[in-house]
């Protein structure tokens, strides 16, 4: 059984992609992930995010939903229609919190859904909690 502290080490040296058009939100998430030694990749719109996902193949992706040029919804569609990226779990991170949003997100292909504002103290733990049951994470934990 892993304790909370060792859970944080799970992400050490792992590539994580964060996509958000709000620079402040992007920075908060990036900083928190850097604190657990993850290799943080950032993108400020869906197009950039798609490119990075294809070329870098991160462990998982965190994405905002409402973005210009390509929204989070469009991004997930693209990711899931590309063999190279369809196995990468994507977590939606958004300030929208209306009824049915989570269901819609999961139906669209997101693995799970976290709401902003996030709790900086528990962000990483919450994040890991919602990706823990994906194949990539299970493999990773098995290795460690």
């Amino acid at each position, binding site marked *: 059984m892993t304790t909370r502290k060792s859970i944080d080490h799970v992400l050490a040296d792992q590539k994580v992609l964060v996509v958000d058009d709000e620079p402040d939100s992007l*920075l908060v998430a990036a900083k928190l992930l850097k604190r657990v030694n993850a290799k943080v990749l950032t993108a400020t719109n869906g197009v950039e995010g798609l490119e990075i996902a294809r070329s870098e193949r991160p462990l998982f992706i965190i994405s905002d939903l409402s973005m210009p040029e390509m929204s989070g919804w469009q991004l997930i569609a693209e990711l899931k229609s590309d063999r190279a990226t369809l196995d990468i779990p994507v977590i939606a991170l*958004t*300030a929208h919190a209306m009824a049915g949003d989570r269901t819609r997100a999961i139906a669209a292909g997101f693995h799970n859904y976290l709401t*902003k504002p*996030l709790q*900086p103290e528990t962000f990483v733990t919450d994040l890991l*909690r919602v990706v823990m049951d994906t194949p990539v994470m299970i493999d990773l934990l098995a290795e460690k």
Partner: protein
Amino acid sequence: MMRWNVLAKPSIYRQILASFAVIVVLILVAGIFNSYELTQLQRVSQQVAPVGEQLITVQEYALTLESLDVRLEQFILVGDEATRNEIELAFEQLQSSIVLLQEGTGESLSGDVQQLEAATNDLIAESQLLIATLDEQNTSVNLLIRNVFTSIDDSRSLSQDLTTELLTLVQTTVTEQARFVEQISVQLYVLTGIIFMIGVGSAVYVSRRVAGPLAEMAAIATEVAEGNLEARVRVKSEDETGRLGLAFNRMADQVEQTLNDLKKANRELKEVSRLKDEFLAIMSHELRTPLNAIIGFHGIMLMDDELNEESQFMVKRSRANADRLLNLINDILDISRIESGRLQLVPVELHIAELAEHWEAQMSILATEKNLDFEVVIDESLPDIVYADEDAVTKIVTNLLGNAFKFTEQGKVLLKMGSAEGKWVIEVSDTGEGIPAHMQEIIFERFRQVDGSSTRKFGGSGLGLAIVRNLCLAMNGTVTVTSTPGSGSNFTVSLPVEMRERTGVLTA
């Protein structure tokens, strides 16, 4: 009540009245005609009775005559006193009959009666002479006898003639009577026939004039009821049915108008509702996004621990205020959503152990800060998994825990979860300042706190418990409070949800 100026317009009512007036007039005319006949009938009838009496008198006369005939023969043979007296009596009877006939018969027969009187007087005289002669035993007896009996025959035939005359008179009267009766009957039959035809004719005419328009109106009304709002009655006359048709059309106009107004109002309402939803969605997003940056950066600064004590304190306070602002925004949006009925609960599988761990982690920071004990206890009666809406349950627990920490300065906050009677029971207890009995119901109302000044001291919008109660109700559950001022409070939530062990069957 009909006003008389209605005469100016055509009217079915007037037509009905006119028909019946004609009928009544005809009946009166018939009555008048017949009354003439009836009077004649009456007059003629009066004549019959006296004629009957006269017949009887003549019959009596004839009988007396026969009796006299017999008595005279007897007297001729026997000649005794008794017979003479009877003969005298017969003379008197004949004469009194004549008197009756004279009095009773009319002008037409007075001649016959006079003749009869003369014959009777002759007879009496000759009979008396016969009697006198017989008394003297005269030889002219045979002649006298012949004279007497001839007189008897004369009188007899005359009385028979009179009888015949009287009978003829009776017959004529009766025939006249019959004729009048027949005339009256015919007239009555004809009149009845005419009245009947007029009556039927009027009824048919009136009913067509009324029933026709009414049937048309009923058909149009059905059409309108089935949805054809433009159907209208054709108004063809100015009488009562015409006015009814006009009134009906006006009403249909009104209905069409009202329906169109309602449709428009409904569209506008839908639009307003849609705009409100849009507003909530946008506000939700717009208000939260900046707070993400604020809370995020503050948290990171505190975690990095590179600030001096003073700066750290200020950042902490700043962060606390940002949290307060976030809570306020969340509460407002929640209550707005719940109360406008837009809350949709989506039960999902929840792992009790995970939830407990999460809440413990969330609150332990606050506990450490306020130097309070915080304990999470899971009773073994509670299965591993429950099915409920995660957001709703989280909100309930977070609100209750938040309150517990807020109003407790020393001691302990306890979160206990278990099951009772098939329901998921969540208890949040604290050793805070408690809630007086009279406030224990009010605090669940919007914007209410135990102490109005608490808002300043403890912060908060006063919406938390209102939200907790609304959510419990939405899940068919309950929330109750027990408290002793000065010792602490206990909030108990009971939710009827499906539960199961990790490797077991569903228990509700």
